[in-house]
């Protein structure tokens, strides 16, 4: 049984109507941020979710943690439907900007103790500080960090504090939304090592959201690729990078700058992610896809791949047959 199971999850946001729209009695339009996402997160894995800005990664994460309701489908956590944030704190989230997620007026120690107290009320008061120190050590922060305020820490230290704060709840699963995107590469490496260690040593299940393909390739076991609200490919990490099947995944991987090579002469894909309001009956990547043809105007279901993964493109499936 998956630890976290997204089943046909949908999310639409009503778009603000102008006064003119109201006068003309125009229909309410919606931005379809997440469309029919089916995704199972297994115990003990690091699942990557990649895709370009606005494709719905964060929305999916907030639904997965119970911070935001879905308006279609359901999310099962440990076999039970998730209704709001887990009361026992078994599901925790880490955000991109560690500064905004920490309380600027409380010491790090007090903030961490508060989380321990909330989710582990059975722990005697006297033991909490010991536990906080154990967790600070776990995220490689010196004991004095407990006495400091967030502004006195560097970006990398703050991000370790926010991971530490999530660990205070003794979670089974961490959803990390772009946790290293705001950090320099020199510092990013600490956080990636930390997440990898927590997964390896404690079996912590991690959903790692990122737009950095190099980081995902290094860290994740499986990867889901999102485009305009949909998952378009899902594969084991190694085969996704060795044999990307969906044309969008291929373009995404090829566009990643490589420090070992100058730019290739290959033509880049044209165009940008169209606005998410666009109503496209068939494949949502068709306007940018070099292989698009008339048959792509039909709805595209996920198709099984030779690698054991799935991709939302009839052509990849046919090419393999």
């Amino acid at each position, binding site marked *: 049984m998956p630890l976290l199971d997204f089943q046909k999850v949908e999310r639409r946001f009503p778009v603000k109507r102008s006064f003119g729209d109201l006068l003309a009695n125009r229909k309410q339009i919606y931005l379809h941020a997440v469309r029919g996402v089916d995704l199972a997160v297994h115990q003990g894995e690091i699942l990557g979710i990649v895709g*370009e*800005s606005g494709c719905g990664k964060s929305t999916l994460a907030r639904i997965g943690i119970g911070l935001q309701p879905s308006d279609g489908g359901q999310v099962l956590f440990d076999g039970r439907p998730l209704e709001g944030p887990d009361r026992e704190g078994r599901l925790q989230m880490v955000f991109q900007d560690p500064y905004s997620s920490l309380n600027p007026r409380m010491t790090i120690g007090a903030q961490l103790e508060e989380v321990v107290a909330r989710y582990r009320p059975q722990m005697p008061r006297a033991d909490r500080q010991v536990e906080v120190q154990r967790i600070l050590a776990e995220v490689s922060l010196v004991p004095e960090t407990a006495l400091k305020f967030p502004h006195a820490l*560097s970006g*990398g230290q703050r991000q370790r504090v926010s991971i530490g704060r999530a660990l205070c709840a003794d979670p089974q699963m961490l959803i990390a939304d772009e946790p290293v995107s705001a950090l*320099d*590469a*020199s*510092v*990013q*490496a*600490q956080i*990636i*090592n930390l997440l*990898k260690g927590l997964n390896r040593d404690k079996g912590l299940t991690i959903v790692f959201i990122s*737009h950095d*393909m*190099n*980081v995902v*390739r*290094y*860290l994740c076991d499986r990867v889901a690729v999102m485009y305009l609200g949909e998952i378009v490919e899902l594969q084991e990490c190694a085969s996704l990078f060795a044999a990307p099947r969906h044309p969008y995944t291929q*373009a*995404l991987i*090829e*566009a*990643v*700058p*490589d*420090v*070992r*090579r*100058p*730019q290739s002469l290959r033509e*880049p*894909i*044209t*165009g*940008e*992610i169209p*606005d998410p309001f666009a109503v496209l009956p068939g494949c949502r990547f068709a306007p940018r896809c070099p292989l698009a043809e008339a048959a792509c105007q039909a709805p595209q279901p996920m198709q099984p791949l030779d690698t054991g993964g799935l991709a939302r493109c009839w052509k990849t499936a046919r090419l393999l047959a």
Partner: protein
Amino acid sequence: MSLLSVRDLITEFESPSGTARAVDGVSFDVKPGEIFGIVGESGCGKSATCRSILRLFGGASARIANGRITLEGAGDLAQMRERDLAQVRGRDVAFIFQDPLSALNPTMRIGKQIGEVIRRHRKASRAEARAAALQLLRDVHVTSPERRLDAYPHELSGGLRQRVVIAMALALRPRLIIADEPTTALDVTVQDQILRLLKERCDSLGTSIILVTHDLGVVSQICDRMAVMYAGRVVETGAVRDVLDAPSHPYTRALLAALPGQVSRDSQLIPIKGAPPSLIDPPAGCRFAPRCTFAQPQCTIGTAPGLHPRPAAAEGHFDACILNEVSHAAA
């Protein structure tokens, strides 16, 4: 022969806690038609170096305390009166910022904005300026350019906006474009398109570009030569393939080693411990010493080491590590 030559540049910012030397003795050259990359961690002085060239400090209490900035045929920009420098901006040297929105006027249509840039520097009727703007939009591969002429900036996507900003930078056929993190705010597939566009324009017009980025991959993609900055100083410089394939300064090596694209999944990434020093009161000697795994007692005394060629290194490949200097003397 250099198009731009920067020598011993020192730029300081006043702040309540003291004077920060954001740029401390930086020298480099940009040749005609080349793309010169400047990389380094956040806060190491990349933007301050670039802004010094055109004195674009946006009201900050900044001053160029020392140095020469020689633009071929224009003299020393560091000594130039503001009035003359205003002529150099846009005409000889154009600037592209990270955030395209901040560079565009939100209340003016795109075609008009590009046209104004042209009309500020040369005589042209409105119709001529509009026609020139249309051609510029075509040159930067904006789709349906006729339609975009009448759009406002907020109606365009991030990638389109950055194309418009590049079109404006190209409007006066400058000899040098300074691009400060031009793709950092963009998605990777769009970044790829914009980098290709910059390279193509540079190749076809012979324009030189200074490209600032914190992403070594971006430098690897399109730059010819590069400088690595650390705490206000250039610590390594040379041809891109020499520096990235055979880095010699411990900081450059550490930066490369920290990248996840470089190692197998089974080995640990190697972060750089600690953080860059304060620029108000930097440590004596090599500024990287507190974080350097090779540091020796002699690294932390005296003035910061300067650039010197390394034994057996390729031509034009310099670094500022004392250890390499010592082995040079011994050789």
